[in-house]
């Protein structure tokens, strides 16, 4: 499969020594990256590879580690590049993408309050959907006690 997606992955591999990567289908590729490189990679993607649209930032809880999952795509083509960065649960901090993609702000806020991934550099990391008194409970974590709701 010699697609643009694969080419993208190869470029990432050359430049940022990304090791774990996969081409799932012509339009879906993913790569696991080191958390400290996310900002540099995003800059590279948006400036040089026309990946100018951040589709979403998801987070997931895998026991000891939290994972920030970025879906980066473009307005001109349909390739969705999924970047995954593992951060330890004890210190879940990762660079914010807001300098590159403006719309990362709210996704990061959401991931912050629901999963506790803290984004360094986000201008306003305030709770977005949860009431203030529920902050710090991180309901989307697997060890969250408040679900199902006891009332």
């Amino acid at each position, binding site marked *: 499969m010699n697609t643009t997606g694969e080419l993208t992955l190869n470029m990432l591999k050359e430049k940022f020594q990304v090791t774990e990567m996969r081409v799932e289908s012509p339009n879906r590729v993913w790569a696991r990256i080191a958390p400290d490189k996310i900002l540099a990679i995003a800059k590279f993607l948006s400036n040089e590879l026309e990946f100018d649209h951040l589709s979403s930032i998801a987070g997931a809880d895998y026991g000891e580690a939290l994972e920030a999952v970025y879906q980066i795509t473009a307005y001109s083509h349909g390739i969705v590049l999924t970047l995954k960065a593992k951060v330890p649960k004890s210190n879940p901090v990762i660079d914010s993408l807001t300098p590159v993609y403006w719309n990362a702000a709210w996704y990061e806020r959401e991931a912050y309050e629901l999963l506790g991934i803290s984004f360094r550099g986000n201008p306003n990391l305030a709770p977005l959907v949860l*009431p203030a008194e*529920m902050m710090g409970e991180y*309901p989307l974590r697997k060890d*969250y006690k408040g*679900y199902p*709701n006891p009332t």
Partner: protein
Amino acid sequence: MGEVEGAGSETAKVRPIQKIIDAHVTFTTTSAIHDFLKKTPLQDLINWGRKNSLWFLTQPMGCCGIEMICTGAPHYDTDRFGIIPRCSPRQADVMIISGYITKKYMPALKLLWDQMPEPKWVICMGDCSISGGPFWESYSTIINTEKYFPVDIYIPGCPPRPEQLIQGFVELQKKITAKQDRTQKGDT
């Protein structure tokens, strides 16, 4: 002067003379008149007026909110019954809880309810507002609406059809005529 020094409570600020005035005033406030009217046949006329002019608060909260909007629009048209939407809680008679009540929204909802003038009624539209619906076990929803609001009418459905909402209004009208609604029973 009878004023307790340094106390911040409301009762402490009331002076004796004020109490006398208050007692005097309550004798002629509208609530006293209403209490008197309740014993007379005039109450039936008032109830007729009230039941035929149930203005509801526009407050779409979820799927049911869309159906609530549709109920007011041409196909169903609640204006036939004299039921029209009002945007300000001060002028509304019925609060339709049309969707999920969350922990974050509850204070605002209470505030809206307090801003409405008596007599007022609550209609719980949809499963979410009755019992949490599909979201009953979620960490952010409140499922026991009954604890917070004196609900007169429950309309089940997810979402209920506009016909059901109209039926709910008709049931509320029946309750008002029969003086069985919770406002008149003082069961709030």
